[in-house]
């Protein structure tokens, strides 16, 4: 438990960022929902459309809604200019505010519908103008119901805000996502406890405000509100730091290797005098757009990933040729600099337990195709949508009996427990050797190669000092060293944090 406690104590910044994000989203949600509710109470058409829209938004999974704002904001740059942020606070704020809309709007509209017609007639009868009727009668009568809606919205928003990690906004989701990827359960638990605790506190405070409204006790109302505002102000104060353009933002996708390499680069840059920020746990598609648009400065990607996802290519002209054409393409299309290859490949491969492969007499994917209908394949949630999988599937005519999704770290457990017979493995993964797995040969070359490469955003590419600090990494990391570092984070016993593994890796490669 002390590990959880330690993790909790380290979450101050994340908690403050989480509070600010949720509070801002809630405030924006309220600012939109209340005028909309007033309009809806005057027009049945508006009421139908507004509630329909809010309900529709609610059916979109929060994760997808957050991710959707990236392309939306990107296209809005045509209107608002290149300064419009596409990752981080703004998209998270907009998506969460949309999420907060429904409960507030629905409660406000319902409160108005449930109001006694006699009271409303009396308001007209004594000669109130529409504005006076709203202020003196409708608003005070609806207030407790609206407050209940705000309360629901607050709890939802605080929960959903953990997902904003995936679009590069620091939140209590950071420890949850990082912990899930590296199987650091203390970190996951700490994130969950902090986020649930925050939701409970917000619910209690807003509950007091709601009772204050309902029972006309101003002390309760203002007291609850004051404590909530004090919490938000304290969070803002905790996060206040003079804006620094010199800060380099390093992005990482959501697996151990990316966390480790992110820290490795970060520590080198800090040693060179840069201030560094991390955006970890980003979706694979988001990372590339983020670095090409300058939302982050540095990312690590893989040649095969960009070849298939960005260039939309299905052919395989060979490792060197793919790299050469990628460098050219990025330079011409996005202005992004591919600084170089780190020296190892992290290929996709299909892996099995060695004993099981032997038992079935399998050495290559071609052999696997014969028995596939009797087997279960496990992959990460992206894998079965990726062009690489489709290419391999079609090249060998693979038809599996069952297809299951696991998060990358759980795939290996699934293989051990027999829940999957074959998994999509990464060749730089330390667990391949540690778990005695066999990566099946790919005689037809259907999987492209996945050289790890460093990408610098168009802006960062202008910084000679930064390039000089990172250049020694090119060609410096052999696959064995990467596997060791990955395994130090991924293994069950004697786990290391990504930062510790990064330091081990630095030492190992002698930099």
């Amino acid at each position, binding site marked *: 438990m002390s590990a959880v406690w330690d993790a909790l104590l380290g979450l101050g910044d994340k908690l403050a960022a989480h509070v600010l994000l949720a509070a801002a989203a809630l405030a924006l949600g309220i600012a939109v929902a209340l005028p909309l509710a007033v309009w809806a109470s005057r027009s049945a058409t508006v009421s139908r459309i507004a509630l329909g829209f809010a309900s529709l938004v609610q059916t979109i999974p929060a994760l997808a809604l957050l991710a959707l704002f990236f392309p939306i904001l990107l296209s809005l740059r045509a209107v608002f200019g290149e300064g419009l942020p596409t990752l981080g606070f703004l998209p998270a704020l907009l998506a969460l505010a949309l999420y907060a809309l429904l409960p507030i709007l629905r409660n406000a509209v319902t409160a108005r519908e449930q109001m*006694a*017609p*006699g*009271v*409303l*007639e*009396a*308001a*007209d*009868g*004594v*000669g*109130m*103008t529409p504005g*006076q009727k709203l202020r*003196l*009668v409708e608003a*005070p*009568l609806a207030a407790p119901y609206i407050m209940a809606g705000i309360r629901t919205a607050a709890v939802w928003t605080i929960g959903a805000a953990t997902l904003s990690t995936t679009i590069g906004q620091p939140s209590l989701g950071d420890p949850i996502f990082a912990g899930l990827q590296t199987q650091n359960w203390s970190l996951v638990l700490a994130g969950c406890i902090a986020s649930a605790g925050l939701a409970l506190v917000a619910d209690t405070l807003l509950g007091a405000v709601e009772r204050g409204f309902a029972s*006309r006790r101003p002390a309760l109302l203002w007291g609850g509100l004051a404590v909530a505002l004090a919490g938000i102000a304290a969070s803002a104060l905790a996060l206040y730091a003079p804006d620094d353009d010199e800060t380099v933002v390093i992005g990482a996708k959501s697996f151990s290797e990316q966390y480790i390499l992110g820290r490795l680069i970060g520590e080198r840059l800090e040693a060179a005098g840069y201030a560094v920020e991390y955006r970890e746990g980003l979706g694979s598609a988001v990372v590339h757009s983020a670095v090409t648009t300058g939302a982050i400065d540095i990312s690590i990607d893989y040649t095969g990933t960009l070849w298939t996802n960005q260039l939309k290519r299905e052919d395989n002209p060979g490792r060197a040729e793919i790299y050469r054409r990628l460098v050219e393409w990025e330079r011409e299309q996005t202005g992004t600099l591919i600084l170089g290859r780190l020296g190892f490949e992290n290929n996709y491969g299909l892996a099995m337990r060695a004993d099981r492969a032997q038992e079935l007499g399998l050495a290559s994917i071609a052999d696997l195709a014969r028995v596939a209908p009797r087997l279960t394949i496990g992959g990460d949630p992206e894998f079965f949508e990726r062009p690489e999988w489709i290419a391999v599937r079609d090249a060998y005519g693979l038809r599996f009996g069952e297809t299951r999704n696991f998060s990358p770290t759980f795939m290996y457990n699934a293989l051990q427990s027999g829940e999957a017979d074959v998994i999509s493995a990464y060749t730089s993964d330390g667990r391949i050797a540690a778990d005695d797995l066999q990566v099946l040969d790919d005689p037809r070359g259907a999987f492209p190669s996945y050289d790890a490469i460093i990408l610098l955003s168009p802006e960062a590419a202008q910084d000679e000092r930064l390039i000089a600090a990172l250049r020694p990494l090119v060609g410096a990391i052999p696959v064995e060293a990467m596997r060791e570092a990955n395994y130090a984070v991924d293994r069950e016993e004697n786990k290391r944090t990504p930062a510790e593994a990064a330091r081990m890796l630095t030492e190992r490669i002698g930099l």
Partner: protein
Amino acid sequence: MPEPILELRDLAKSYGAVEALRGVSLDVAEGSFVALVGASGSGKSTLLKTVNALVVPGTGSVSFEGEDVAALPGPALRRRIGYVFQAIGLFPHMSVGENVGIGLKLAGERNRAARIAEMLELVELDPAMASRMPSELSGGQRQRVGVARALAPQPDLLLMDEPFGALDPVTRDSLGERVRELHKRLGLTTVMVTHDMAEAMLLADRVLVMSEGRIVADETPAGLLSGAGGEEAQALVAVPRAQAERLARIDR
């Protein structure tokens, strides 16, 4: 003959296919107590509400104290007219005193407490009740507050839509009497909608009978009792008269 305080001309109003008013014209003299009697759906409530513009007529005009109602802003017009109705509609989040004083507050008057106490006394309520909430009152007390609220801004005209409809007979009778007294004492012009012919004849000095969107009789209570007003009016008068005769026979 003094200038009428209300002049209604050729009023018509339909709700979809239902014609609530089919050409009603009517003058109401200042100081009179007029009752509008008729069955449900006869158009009497609709007619009443055209006066304070809660209902806007399809065609025709209403003038109040010489001004065309359609040309006045609704809220300003309604502040000059007292309005009491069956649902009462006390504001549940305001105290009794705040309810009574709402018209004064809208008019921007600052010292309302004395006037509120005076109004509560007028409707025979303890002024100490001002601090209570409406939910703590009985039905009869609530309608008394409703009447006090309507009269607090000192209107010239009082409109009442089935004001005693939801009250028990004893309360109904005493509050009716009280309103009649206030009508005289404050020099009001009062128009009251009711479906109860006995109540109309006991309180009003002019009874209008409505049927299917038209006024079919316009008589004094005495005239009605002597058989004037035509068939529909007499059918309504026959009910309380028969009841009174039956009661008299039991007594004998």
